[in-house]
């Protein structure tokens, strides 16, 4: 019999991780919500965020949490670049084209990244101590990552609902032609939204890098988690993404207590396929 303390500790651990998963998934869901594009370069962008923080820390001596700001800015710029090169031309083409176009970016990043960094695991060696509450031990890095994820999610919400640019993003998302008629430069807003999505992914990657080892290929696993989360919360719904992240995090914390860890992906993807079938609009519905 597993003691309730273990359950609580695993649950909290999972939930903290869930906030960060949710943040990564918000990037994916935002891009889908605004332009109906599934960004298959999502995983490599997460990995680039990890490497951004790592390189700044290892070679520039920049503290990982300061490095996150640089990574956020770079993520935004990289996203705008990807949009301009690969997405804009095929935005109105069938799904096949945007899926394959973003996937080609994925291959380029992974290919170059593997050549540059090899696939030896890296890790960022920082510790923020730990918080002990009875049976529950909280790592400082995870606590801070969850806090950062919540703050960024709140920031995104304020941005989308309270600022002019954010309102433009929502206008383009709901009807691009009408937005264009109202004088909104929709192409630029789309590019910016794509950049915002990749920025969220990169920052989430940077946060994950502070407590898990990683390689350039690690992004793939988080990309798949992001898909599951997006479908859980409803594609295109940022709040849903955060909720989905928490659910997935909790599952990931609790499943290993009753089953071997290697079964976690099987259960996650069964859940994913079942959800796609039974409730493709997600638990909270679209947008």
């Amino acid at each position: 019999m597993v003691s309730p303390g273990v359950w609580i500790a695993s649950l909290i651990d999972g939930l903290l991780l869930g906030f960060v998963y949710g943040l990564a998934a918000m990037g994916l869901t935002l891009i889908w919500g605004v332009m109906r594009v599934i960004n298959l370069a999502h995983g490599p962008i997460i990995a680039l965020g990890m490497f951004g923080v790592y390189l700044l820390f290892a070679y520039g001596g920049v503290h990982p949490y300061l490095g996150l700001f640089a990574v956020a800015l770079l993520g935004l710029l990289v996203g705008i670049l990807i949009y301009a090169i690969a997405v804009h031309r095929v935005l109105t083409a069938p799904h096949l084209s945007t899926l394959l176009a973003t996937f080609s970016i994925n291959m380029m990043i992974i290919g170059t990244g593997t050549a540059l960094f090899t696939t030896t695991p890296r890790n960022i060696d920082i510790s923020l101590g730990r918080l002990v509450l009875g049976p529950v031990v909280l790592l400082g890095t995870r606590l801070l990552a969850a806090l950062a994820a919540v703050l960024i999610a709140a920031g995104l919400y304020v941005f989308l609902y309270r600022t002019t640019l954010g309102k433009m993003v929502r206008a383009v998302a709901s009807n691009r032609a009408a937005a264009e008629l109202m004088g909104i430069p929709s192409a630029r807003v789309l590019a910016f939204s794509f950049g915002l999505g990749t920025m969220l992914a990169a920052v989430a990657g940077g946060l994950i890098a502070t407590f898990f080892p990683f390689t350039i290929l690690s992004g793939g696993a988080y990309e798949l988690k992001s898909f599951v989360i997006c479908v859980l919360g409803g594609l295109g719904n940022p709040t849903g993404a955060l909720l989905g992240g928490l659910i997935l995090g909790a599952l990931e914390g609790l499943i290993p207590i009753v089953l071997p860890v290697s079964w976690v992906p099987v259960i996650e993807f069964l859940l994913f396929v079942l959800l796609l079938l039974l409730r493709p609009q997600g638990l909270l519905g679209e947008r």
Partner: protein
Amino acid sequence: MSMWRSISWWFTLIVLLGAGLWPIASGSATGREDMFLILMLVTLASSLNILLGYTGYVNFGHIVFFGLGGYIGFYLMHRQGWSLGPAMIAGGLATAALALVLGTIILRLRGAYFALATIGINEAVRAFVANFEPFGGATGMSLNFAVYQAYGGAAQALWIAYGVLLAVTLLTVGISFAVKHSKFGLGLMAIREDEDAALVLGVRGPRAKTLAYALSALFPGMVGVLFFFKNGNIEPGDAFRLHLSIETLVMVMLGGQGTVWGPILGAALYERLRGYLLTSPLFKSLHLAFAGMLLLLIILFVPAGVIGWLRARFPAIRRVIP
């Protein structure tokens, strides 16, 4: 059947048979190994094309059928003592049946949702096989060397596997040709152009899509058995390489989706190109990045692929190249 009276089918058959028989005629083992890979990729690309090119559904998990078929056939040969032929047919039929079941469920999803589901299936099957003890779990299975004695020794077994693969390739391309020129194929292409309109016009959408999915799953299952029979061992990482799924997509796009010759040419071109890139020191580690760039250029500038472009540019060749 009318396809035996068509010039373009005879052309296809003669070219493929000529290329496929060349290593057998010359008796060269390296030639056979090269052709084995090309024919395998042609089969994978052509079968993917039935769903991707004709029906317009992106499948990121095509390799699931290759890996799973390989596993089932391998299990039958290794643990149950079946011989290659029946094991191969069983592998193919099992994956086709799986696709039929999966298809009735997930082909209710359209477009991007279906593509996402296929990624999920790939990962779920890989994780399942890695945990499934009868299939050897994470370490996989190895054939006992003595198994090859039944085929007249290991060297002879490789030639047999090659011959069978050639037959499977011809069958795949033949089915691909027949589907494209049938009423069933027209229904699929109608779904690709506008699914709602096709439904209104009386195409049985879900049934046609599911059949196309099952058909596209049959051949990779058979080829998987042949490949892993030749290989002698099988493990989850080898059997479910997501990259091979993607490379197959690149091949279909490169040659021209929705044409019979596109996947054939695309597979051959891509294989040659990759072989060159892997041996050139500059591109050795960058070949994936290069493939990505190639894919992007095709999508942005030549979405119809080489064959599609040629057919649009020189309408006369449509009579010969299907």
